[in-house]
Every structure is written in structure tokens, then in C-alpha cells.
């Protein structure tokens, strides 16, 4: 792709991504885009899956998504994708909840309502591992996230796996017990801003503008100033809750407010291991394509240049270079 001036990125509503909306509304994004002589249009898509699909189909240059979905949808769909910003990992935002039972072991034999093939499904698989159960021991019922809270209210539903803000809504209901959450597998469910690798290569300005704007917002959020509080209030409002609710959600999210932390995390030795778990999960559920010959079909590359899977078909790249620029304060 040739260098260009106008870029479009999209995001969907989730606690760790709310700053994107704020960036666009507050003009921070425009400030940074102007600095690098480009235009960045930020669009919110209410439906998470639809936002990834749009990105994968080429409608957007960047999109917010989890590490797992980045591997399965755009990378699996042949779109070479770079994780530009590692924003946070879920630290309790995703949880397994049982009704009237207090131990994870009791899940055996139950019907479990969750969004199938999502990170919830992954969380459940990891949770079952810890108590020596396998997916055959339970029955998975696909349930749309929008209906999860209402579904939990019915007598048919005895266990759910879901994410925030649904978790906090459900836990507040009588008889609900959180028996496992993502805090027990820290760093495995990672929320990213990914961009098209080719676009990024041809337009480094895009990477710089996005990273610069993002960490300005991060700094604002942690500043403790009235402006910072106002910013968080706006994010809360945009996600349909209030400041207290938003803070509660933030509490179970391990945000990388400082770029250094994000760079460290991306450079860490845990990340390839996590991605190996993820790709095995995806492969065993047939998500890498119904006729994917092996778990190695799609290659991933990491900060240190190591790869996982087919090195000739690297489609997902973890590259902390731009975040490092932010950490170094050279943006």
C-alpha cells in the first residue's frame, strides 16, 4: 500500500477501550494526528464482532480486540496484523459464575452459558484445566452477551462465563458465586489496538499518532486532576454506567498506564507461552479454519524476533517499537 493521509480505526465498548472514544471526542487524537500531518477518524462500533469483521474485511486500518480474536479472525483471515498498543490484560474482568454453588468443581455436568468461541470460552477451558475437568464434562450453551444478565435471571441457567460489566451485574444478583476469574490466569486475556502491518510499515506516522494520543489519555486518567476525573466520567457515561461503576470495572483490569510497563509485558517471556495456549485452544475448536492442517498454519512473531508457528506465514506481530518511543518520550 502506498503512503496515505487518511486513516480509520474502530473500537467497541469495553472498559479497557473506552479511552478511544474520549480521544476522539476531546480532540487529543486530532492534536496528535495534526502533529504528524495525517487524519485519523475514530469510529465506535457497538457490536464487537462486527468491528473485527469490518477491520478484517479492510474497512478500517486499525481496531481494538483481544489477543485471541486477533489471532483467529484477522490473522486467520490472511490480514497481516500488528499489535500496536498492548493496553491491558484482564485481571478479573472475565469470570466463571455459578448459581447457588461455591466451588468450581461443581460445574461438572452443568450447562454453561457463554458466548461460544470467545475469550469466555477460553477462560472456561483454562478454568476446567485447573480442576482436572475437560469440556466434555459440561455442556456449552451459546448465549449472546446482550442477553446474559437476563438469562442468568431465569431458572434454566445455573452457570455462566462472561465479562464485565456483565460480571458485576450478575454477581450482584442473589445466589451468584464467582468461582474463577481471569485474575487467576493473569496476562492471558490481553486487550490490544491492532493495525494493519502493511499500512503501518508504509505510514509510521499512524503508529506514532495513535500511541502518542493513547498515552496522553493514560496520563490524564492517572493524573488525579479534575480534568482526569472528568475524562473518566465521560468514559463511564459512554459505557452506560457512572464513575463508580467504571472504577469498579477498572479495578479488575490491569491497565498499562505507563508505556514502559506495556513494553516490558510485550517483551516478556510469558507472552509466547500465552499465545501458544491460545492457538492450541483455537485449533482444537476448529477456529483456525475448518480445514486447517495443524496448529502451526498461522505464524506469530514476538518482540525478540522469535516466531511461533509457520515462520513463512507470519500474520500476527507483537511489536513494542512504537510504545517504546512513547516510553522514551521521543514522540
Amino acid at each position, binding site marked *: 500500500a502506498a503512503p496515505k493521509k487518511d486513516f480509520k480505526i474502530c473500537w467497541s*465498548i469495553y472498559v479497557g477501550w473506552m479511552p478511544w472514544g474520549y480521544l476522539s*471526542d476531546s480532540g487529543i487524537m486530532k492534536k496528535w494526528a495534526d502533529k504528524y500531518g495525517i487524519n485519523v477518524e475514530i*469510529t*465506535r*462500533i*457497538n*457490536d464487537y464482532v*462486527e468491528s473485527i*469483521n*469490518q477491520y478484517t*474485511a*479492510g*474497512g478500517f486500518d486499525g481496531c481494538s480486540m483481544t489477543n485471541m480474536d486477533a489471532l483467529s479472525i484477522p490473522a486467520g483471515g490472511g490480514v497481516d496484523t500488528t499489535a500496536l498498543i498492548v493496553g491491558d490484560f484482564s485481571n478479573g474482568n472475565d469470570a466463571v459464575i455459578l448459581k447457588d454453588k461455591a466451588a468450581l468443581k461443581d460445574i461438572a455436568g452443568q450447562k454453561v452459558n457463554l458466548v461460544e468461541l470467545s475469550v469466555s470460552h477460553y477462560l472456561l477451558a483454562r478454568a476446567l484445566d485447573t480442576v482436572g475437568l475437560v469440556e466434555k464434562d459440561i455442556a456449552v450453551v451459546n448465549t449472546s*452477551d*446482550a*442477553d*446474559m*444478565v*437476563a438469562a442468568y*435471571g431465569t431458572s434454566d441457567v445455573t452457570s455462566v462465563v462472561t465479562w464485565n*460489566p*456483565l460480571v458485576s*451485574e450478575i454477581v*450482584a444478583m*442473589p445466589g451468584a458465586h464467582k468461582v474463577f476469574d481471569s485474575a487467576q490466569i493473569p496476562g492471558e486475556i490481553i486487550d490490544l489496538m491492532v493495525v494493519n502491518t502493511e499500512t503501518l510499515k508504509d505510514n509510521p506516522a499512524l503508529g506514532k499518532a495513535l500511541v502518542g494520543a493513547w498515552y496522553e489519555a493514560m496520563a490524564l486518567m492517572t493524573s488525579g486532576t479534575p480534568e482526569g476525573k472528568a475524562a473518566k*466520567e*465521560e468514559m463511564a*457515561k*459512554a459505557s*452506560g*454506567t457512572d464513575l463508580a461503576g467504571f472504577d469498579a470495572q477498572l479495578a479488575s483490569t490491569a491497565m498499562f498506564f505507563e508505556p514502559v510497563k506495556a513494553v516490558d509485558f510485550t517483551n516478556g517471556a510469558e507472552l509466547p507461552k500465552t499465545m501458544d495456549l491460545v492457538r492450541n485452544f483455537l485449533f482444537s475448536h476448529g477456529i483456525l479454519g475448518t480445514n486447517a492442517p495443524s496448529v502451526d498454519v498461522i505464524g506469530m512473531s514476538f518482540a525478540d524476533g522469535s516466531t511461533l508457528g509457520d515462520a513463512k506465514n507470519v500474520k500476527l506481530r507483537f511489536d513494542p517499537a512504537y510504545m517504546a518511543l512513547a516510553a522514551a518520550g521521543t514522540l
Partner: protein
Amino acid sequence: MNAVPEGGAEVPRAPRRRPRLRLINATVSRGGALFLGALPFAAVAVAYLFASAQRLAVNPSDKLLPSPAQMWSAFLDLATVPDKRSGDLILWADTFASLVRLFAGVGVATLAALCLGVAIGFIPRVRAFLLPFVTVVCVIPPLAMLPILFIALGLGETAKITLIALGVAPVMVRDIANRVMELPPELVAKAQTLGANSWTMVLRLVLPQVTPRLITCVRLALGPAWLFLIAAEAIASTEGLGYRIFLVRRYLSMDVILPYVAWITLLAVITDWLLVRLSHVISPWAHPVQDK
């Protein structure tokens, strides 16, 4: 032979009490109709109040069936307190955005129904050409085609309006085409003997004859149209009645959802009533005054 009108020897009395009529002949007075019509609504209201009170008694923070007071205060907030961010009154901004989309979508569908429906119903060649296709398109669930639609048209208003139009148009097209095919052949033959060509027949015979049906079609299509509007707004938009419902649904904020649904219903009922009036004005012949 006598030319004087007969009768009058014994003058019959007028009936004293209202006679018992067969079910299908017993008409209902205006007041009676109002009363009867209000009954089901009252029943639903009472059932709701009862269930709500019961649930709230068990769990005062129950969100599923909020009390009327809770709903009213939530609704008032939305209708009268300006949003901090944009300064808009949320309810009105949502309503405006949604109505524009709805009417644009239904408008496009109506136009398509009129053009295609009349062409399919009236011209055998067009019928052979398009009817099979429309029949098939009619049954393709538009929601399954959403990704392609959004990618082809982007996420803007166009895609939403197209979704609504695609959602309701095929049924309307088929219905109008059916009606046109049901036109009495005598009228078509007669028009031709008077020198009409295909185009003037469309203008002066077919259109006026299907107008009342078209309006009925629009009335029937408005239900599904709201559905598609809500579905479209749930996927990509930043305001609109459907967006708001989608946004608060994950928190099970029934105190916002229910007033919004009631508001949508009210808007829809008003639209329906306006369409009925419109039909009376445009096609008085299709609504003979009942004199029973």
C-alpha cells in the same frame, strides 16, 4: 285501482328495547368501543403492577420490573436533563435520529414496493424476470447478510437505511404485486378500449387502486421496520432509540428500556393513525361511510 298510498290504518309501535342481534351484527357504541378497547391495556397494566410490586417486595433492588415511579424518573431524566457531553436532550436526539432513519428506510421500501410491485404485477415480462428473484430475496434473512452489507456500504446512515429498506421491501413488493394481479380484468380491458396505454393505465388505474393497499402495507411494515432499526442501531451508531436500548440492556436497566419501548410504541401508534387518516384523504372511495 287507487293511487293513494296505503297503510296507516294501524300504526305499528316502535320497538321498546334494543333487540338481541347476532354476534356479527351487534355493533358497538363509541363509548363501548373505547371501554372495550381499553380493557386489554388495563389488564396488562394491572398484571405488570402486581408482578413488579411482588418482585420489588422480595428484592428492592430488582431491576427486571421497575416500579412506575422509577421508570418515570428515568424517563424524565432522559427527556429533560441535557447530556453533559453533547448538551443534547437524549430522548429527543435519539428520537430524531431514529425517526429519520426509519422514515428514510420505509420511504425507500415504499417507493420500491410501488415501482417494482406495480411492474411485477402488471407487466408479464417484468413478472417473469423479477418475481422469482424477489421471492427468493424475500426469504434471505437480512441479518445473516449484515457483514456483507456493512462492508459494501460502510457503517454510516446508508447501511442502516438500506438494512431497514431491504428488511421490509420484499414483503411489500410481493403484496403490492399480488394486489395488482387481483385487479378485475374487466377494468383493465375497459381502460384499453378507452385508449389507455400501459403507462396511462398505471397512472390512472393501477396506482389509485393500489394506494389504499399500499398504505396498509406501510402500516404493516412499520412493525418489522422498527425491529430492523433497532438491530441496525445496535451494531453501529452513537444515538438513536435502538442504540440506547442496546447500550443499557447489558446492565438490565429495564427502568430505561421499558419507557423507551413504550415511547417507541406511542410513536408507532401515532404513525399508524396518521396513515389511516391519509388513506381516508387520498382514497375516500375505499372507505365508504358505515351507516349502521
